[in-house]
């Protein structure tokens, strides 16, 4: 009997440890980023790092470690992608939840899932061979590898997240809301826009924020499709180099444990913090939303 109880306790402890391991991994990622990022600031002041617009770590005479250009680039392609993905994503979610015939929905939902399953490197490849030449022809620019291209591809990447989470939010709106609105004489469209979308708004905002988090952290698509010029971005038809691309390009070339190497970890830390904050805000918004219906 005692042995059985001991075993039971042991198993429970093992699973508890397994749960705590997840917290340790997140904390471990943060800690290792901090440890590897800190030596940067022996040579570079935090102010220069966060407010400098010039990133040129490989210069022998005057290396510069300012990340503003790449932060602006990241947000530029992200916002560009959201401008495309948010309306289409919410529209599709509304279509799936309120307009589509149940049979159509059965087919349409896997379509969104398949889109989510396409590897980012394939999307980036299509950015080079398909979207790039198309933009080049349309605008008369040389290669079509620019911020616009990155935005379009990131929109494709963020769409499935926005669609499926927005649809969940719409499905969670109590049926009685809809029935009350229809009983008062509102049309289906009016009910959808003014009642259901309004009631699900925090869930939809959270969905868009998570889509944004994905777009910010996406590496391969922007690496392949935005042209990677490390200058301050001057427009959507110009080449940009977001934070993720900078790490991906330079970590392969840099000698380990140099200031440059540590600075790349510092960029990773900034990236980690940005996505962390976005996820936390989405989490808070979502929790508030769930409480509203209880």
């Amino acid at each position: 009997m005692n042995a059985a109880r001991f075993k039971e306790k042991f198993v429970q402890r093992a699973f508890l440890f397994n749960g705590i391991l997840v917290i340790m991994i997140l904390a471990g990622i943060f800690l290792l980023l901090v440890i590897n990022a800190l030596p940067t600031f022996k040579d570079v002041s935090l102010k220069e790092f966060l407010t400098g617009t010039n990133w040129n770590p490989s210069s022998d005479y005057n290396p510069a470690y300012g990340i503003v250009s790449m932060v602006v680039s990241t947000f530029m392609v992200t916002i560009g992608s959201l401008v495309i993905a948010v309306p289409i994503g919410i529209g599709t979610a509304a279509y799936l939840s309120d307009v589509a015939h149940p049979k159509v929905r059965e087919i349409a939902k896997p379509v969104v899932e398949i889109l989510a399953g396409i590897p980012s490197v394939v999307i980036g490849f299509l950015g080079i061979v398909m979207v790039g030449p198309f933009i080049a022809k349309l605008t008369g620019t040389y290669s079509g590898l620019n911020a616009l291209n990155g935005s379009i591809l990131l929109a494709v990447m963020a769409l499935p997240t926005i669609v499926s989470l927005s649809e969940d939010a719409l499905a969670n709106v109590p049926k009685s809301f809809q029935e009350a609105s229809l009983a008062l004489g509102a049309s289906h469209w009016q009910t959808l826009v003014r009642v259901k979308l309004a009631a699900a708004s925090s869930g939809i905002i959270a969905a868009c924020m998570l889509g944004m988090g994905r777009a910010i952290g996406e590496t391969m698509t922007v690496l392949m499709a935005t042209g990677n010029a490390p200058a301050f971005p001057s427009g959507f038809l110009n080449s940009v180099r977001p934070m993720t691309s900078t790490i991906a390009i330079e970590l392969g070339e840099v000698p380990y444990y140099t200031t440059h190497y540590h600075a790349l970890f510092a960029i990773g830390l900034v990236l980690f913090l940005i996505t962390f904050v976005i996820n936390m805000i989405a989490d808070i918004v979502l929790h508030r939303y769930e409480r509203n219906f209880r």
Partner: protein
Amino acid sequence: MNLSKRSQKKFFEQFFGFGFLRLCMLAIIVILVIIFYDIISKSWGVISWEFLTQLPRKGMTEGGILPTIVGTVLVTIITAVLSVPLGMGCAIYLNEYAKVNKLTRLIRISIRNLSGVPSIVYGLFGVALFVEMMHLGTCILSSGLTLGLMTLPWTITASEEALKGVPMSYREGSLALGATQWQTIRTNVLPYAIPGMLTGTILGLARAAGETAPILFTGAAFSLPGLPKSLFDQFMAMPYHLYIMSTQHHAIVKVRPIAYGTALVLVSIVFLMNLSAIILRYHLRKARQE
């Protein structure tokens, strides 16, 4: 008069509104069709038995992509070995043991944040922990472990969904007969949850197989003379191969067909994994309904 005008306006509003929503859905379908049409139509001539079973030749301008397929499969196996047991264990803790308290909430917040960490940051973490701190070097093992950590939050979420689907009465019946909690989980919960867990796990592994950023600096190699001999060797991988064939190769235009072929094989493998998960899920639902 006034009333009919208003109802007319209501009608048109709905007509155009729903029309817009249909267009949104159509846009996504069109995007998917274009993607598949482009890849399949341009890679059809490249795909052959030789393409799948031979080593690259003449500076990767000819020959097959066998090493990249082998590399991706090996890495995905390591990924599964790390992330499946840990993910299932964590899901079992959350769904079967955890009480509603601060620790549980902290675990859940961590899982959500882990799934939001950018893949390139996992790459940095892999370099710092596996390659440098643990001295594994750049190899299959380092890449697989890095991808394993990245897939962990997906495995946990999917496994928990599966556990939630097991009716409470299964547990109560067993507990009422005097079984301990672990006996109950082992005999009355897991047998019913494992197929669902596998479904979600396969979906996660499919995503891991297509990831590039985490393996860039933890073990993937530009080009290797042969197949990897141990887990401590570098490897070639399909997604990385597609990346270098489309951006880094010295004869980019010449190797474009190979890039397209690689893209098709990669998408097909990911798609087949997804499909098998979806079919598994379908049979599961049917079995449960009967």
